[in-house]
Every structure is written in C-alpha cells, then in structure tokens.
C-alpha cells in the first residue's frame, strides 16, 4: 500500500442549476500523502471549494471516486474536519459550545468533552474566551474557534477552505505560523485551499495548481524550502513567480470564459 491518505481518482462534479449544467471538476486526479501539508491554488470558480466538499463527503462526486486510506468514501466523518472561509460558527453557541459541538455529536461524555474542548481552545490561544459568543470576537479569533472546533474531533485530515482569506495581513501571517506549529505538533494531514500563492508556498509541502473551470490538476510544485520559510528570500520569490506565471495563463482563460468566449473564439475574432 502507498502512503496516500486521500486519493481522488478521475473525479468529476456536475452542478445543475436552473437547467444550466456546470462541470465544476472534470477528471481530477490527486493524491494527498499521509501527514502532508498540501496547498491548493487556482483561479476563483475553478472548483477548489467543490473539491474540499467532495473530500469531506458533503457532496458526492458525479463521476470517479475518492479514497481515504484506500477505502472509497461515502459519508461525512469526523476523521475529515473542515474549516470554512467565513468560519461558519454557530452563533447561538458560546466558544466552548462551538468547540464541543462535534464531540457532542459523537456522544462523548460531558466531562471528557469539556476537557478536550478546553485543551483545543487553549491550543489556539483563546483561553479566557470560553463563554464569549461568536459575534463578540474578531475575525481572527473566530477562525481560531473554527480551527479548535475542527481539531477537537481529532481528525486525521483537516480540510481548510481559504481559512485566512478574509483576515487582515497581520492576523493572517500570525495564524499561518500558528497553523504550522499545530500541524507539526498534531501530525495531521492538511489540505489547504488558498488564492494566495505566497500563502501556499509558505505553508505547503506541495502546491497544487488547478486549471480554470472545469477544475483539474494543472501542475504540482514540490516546495523544498526549509521551514521556517522566509517570504522575503530569493528562493521563495523564485518558486512563487514560477507558480504565478503558470497561474496567470489560467486566469486569462477564466476571464475570457466569464465573457463566455473561449480562447479559440478570441483567436478567430482576432484573425
């Protein structure tokens, strides 16, 4: 057996809305290795969120299959916990209740539940905020709660969908470093979607670049820079611009497709 934690085998996802058919993903193949920090970048609308939802079994692939430890996935499970871009905390629950939520659903006894929740609240640096409601917290703090909530069910895989995308630069840098620390301590496999190449290169063992819709894997970059990585180093910018130039081509395609023209049509119009 391989050391693949997750495998996507020619996964396709078709959405139908008001009679429109949209292939969000088409024949996507991807492996996520055990314990790896995998970053995924791609033009917006290329199906990154869709891919994570499929990995979490919150949606079913239209074609193909997704394996976890070699077994085909069907239903959501606590071994794959998700962190959403806009936190998606339960506004009627305190921080503590939010973090306890998954454990409650797993029927963990109240004492143990509390203990584990408090442990993860402390781990993400929110000690003392247990009784706060989400609305009383800043964006960065909310995302810490969401992270603690996901970690509390002790998942093997963390699926993170642009988790720091809506935060200010300072909070973002800080949380990136925190996340790496937690990843090293907790030995999780992480699939991290971002639209920031800098973030992807800073965090990832590998960076997967997706094509514009329908999403496939365009290119995979091994990031061999030693941690802690310096975003200002020349090595960092070299890797970054390599990914960037590849992404630029994809973005151009996205823009043209937004005006419902594909590149062939444009070429014909110019001729």
């Amino acid at each position, binding site marked *: 057996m391989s050391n693949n934690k997750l495998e996507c085998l020619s996964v396709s996802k078709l959405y139908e809305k008001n009679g429109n058919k949209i292939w969000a993903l088409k024949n996507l193949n991807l492996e996520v290795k055990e314990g790896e920090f995998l970053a995924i970048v791609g033009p917006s609308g290329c199906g990154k969120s869709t891919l994570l*939802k499929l990995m*979490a079994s*919150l949606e079913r692939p239209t074609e193909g299959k997704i394996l976890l430890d070699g077994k085909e996935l069907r239903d*959501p*499970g*606590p071994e*794959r*916990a*998700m962190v*959403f*871009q*806009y936190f*998606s*905390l*339960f*506004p*009627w629950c305190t921080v503590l209740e939010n973090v306890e*939520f*998954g454990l*409650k*659903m*797993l029927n963990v006894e109240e004492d143990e539940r509390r203990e584990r929740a408090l442990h993860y609240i402390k781990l993400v640096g929110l000690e003392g905020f247990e009784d706060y*409601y989400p*609305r*009383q917290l800043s964006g960065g703090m909310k995302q810490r709660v969401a992270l603690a*909530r996901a970690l509390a*069910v002790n998942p093997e895989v963390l699926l993170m969908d642009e988790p720091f995308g809506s935060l200010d630069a300072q909070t973002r840098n800080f949380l990136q470093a925190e996340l790496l620390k937690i990843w090293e301590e907790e030995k999780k496999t992480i699939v991290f979607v971002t639209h920031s190449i800098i973030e992807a290169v800073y965090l990832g063992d590998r960076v997967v670049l997706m094509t514009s819709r329908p999403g496939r894997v365009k290119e995979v970059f091994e990031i061999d820079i030693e941690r802690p990585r310096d975003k200002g180093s020349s090595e960092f910018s070299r890797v970054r611009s390599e990914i960037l130039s590849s992404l630029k081509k994809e973005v151009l395609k996205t823009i043209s497709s937004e005006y419902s023209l594909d590149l062939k049509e444009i070429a014909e119009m110019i001729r």
Partner: protein
Amino acid sequence: MNARTIFVFLVFFASWELISRSLGNPIFPPPSKVFLALFDLMLPRNLGFLSAPVESGKLVPSLLNTLERVLMGFSLGSLAGFSLGILNFRFESLEKTIDPIVKILHPIPGVSWIPISFLAFGESDLAVVFPVVIATFFPMLVNTTSGMKSVEEDLILAARNLGAKGIRFYSHVLIPATLPFVISGLRISWSYSWRTSIAAEMVLSLAKGGGLGMLHLTSMYHLDVASAMAIMLTIGVTGMVLDHLVLGYLERRTLEKWEG
C-alpha cells in the same frame, strides 16, 4: 418610559378631561370616567359607575375567557405553522406544491373565517379558536419556511461535517439557526391572533360566556362609552404585555446572542 412620554401623557389626559367636560356629551366621556368604569368593571362589587350594572365585575372573567381561547388557537396555529415549515425544509417538493396555495390563503384575514367557523362550530369555543388558528398558522409557516431557507449553506455543511444528522441536526442546528425568524413569526402571529379573537368574540355568542369582545359590544349596546373605552384599554394593555414583555423578552434574549 421617559419623562417626556409621561409629560405628553399628562398633557393628553388633561386636555381630554377638559374638552370632554366642557362639551358634556355622553359619547365623549372624560378619562376620569373611563378609569372609574375600569374599576367598576374589575371589582366584584357594583360601584355604580356603569350604565349597565350587569357588567360590573365582568372584566376579569371575560379577559380569562378571551385568553383561554386565544392562547389555545395561538399555540395550535403556531405549532402547526412551525411544523409544516420544517417539513417544507425537509421536503423541497412539498414546499413547491403548497406554495401557491399558501400565497393565496395567507392574505385572507383570520376574521374572514368567522362565518364559516360559526357554521361549523356554533356556540362552542372552537368557533373563536379556529379563526385564531388560521390567523396564527400562515405568518408562522411563512416565517419558518423563509427562516430555514435563509440559513447559510456553509453553516449547514459545517454541522453535517461535525456529525450532526437525523433528528439532532434539526434540534441542534436548524431550529436554533432559525430561532430569530421563528420568534418574529410568533410576534406577528400573536398580533393577528389577538385581533382575530376579539373580533370573533364580538360577533359570536358563545356558550361558555363571552370574552372581552362581547363585553365591549355589550357596553356599546348600553351606550356606555366609558366602559367601552376601559375595555379597549384592557385589550391594548393585554396585547402589549404579551407581545412586548413575553415575546419581546424572548426575542431580546435570542438576538443578543446572534448580533448584540
């Protein structure tokens, strides 16, 4: 209530008293008479302030009759509206099917159902309860349905990701997430059902005894405007207490968690 409100109240009552006394017309009694009528209506002994002494002491029993009917109709109607709202979320095809019917029935006021209700239930309390149920049901259904629809997709996904499913998905996620809508639905429903029950009592003669609506109408028969006004005051204050103090309290308690 701030000092300015109290001041305006005082000025209002004082001018009313003065104008009414100078006109001396019985269809425009001064507030002092209204309050004396109110006491006479409330207290078991006839104080002699009413042109129809039979009404003396009737206020509290009438109020209780009204409350019994309205609360029964309100609970049944809101429970039914809420439940169907949940079913609408669970079965999208159900919502699509009944939506046009709901859209037509929703604007029909509860009072429009009184004649049918009378034919169906005669002099029993149900003749009042039924239109109240209807008046409560539709706002509750509409609010619950739109509340459930407006729950953020990601919130639902987050809950499912953390293992919420089956009945616990509803009890721990969907219903709490919809609570602000449910409470505002309750408040709208309450105001409809309160109005409907008073109106129904005015036109129906009920075996168990009339409520505030009937008492109100009787005082008008006797041209006892002071006691009619006293009863109107009671209707207003009771409606306000239940809406503002009971449901409003619930709303403030819930919303303070949501957004402060």
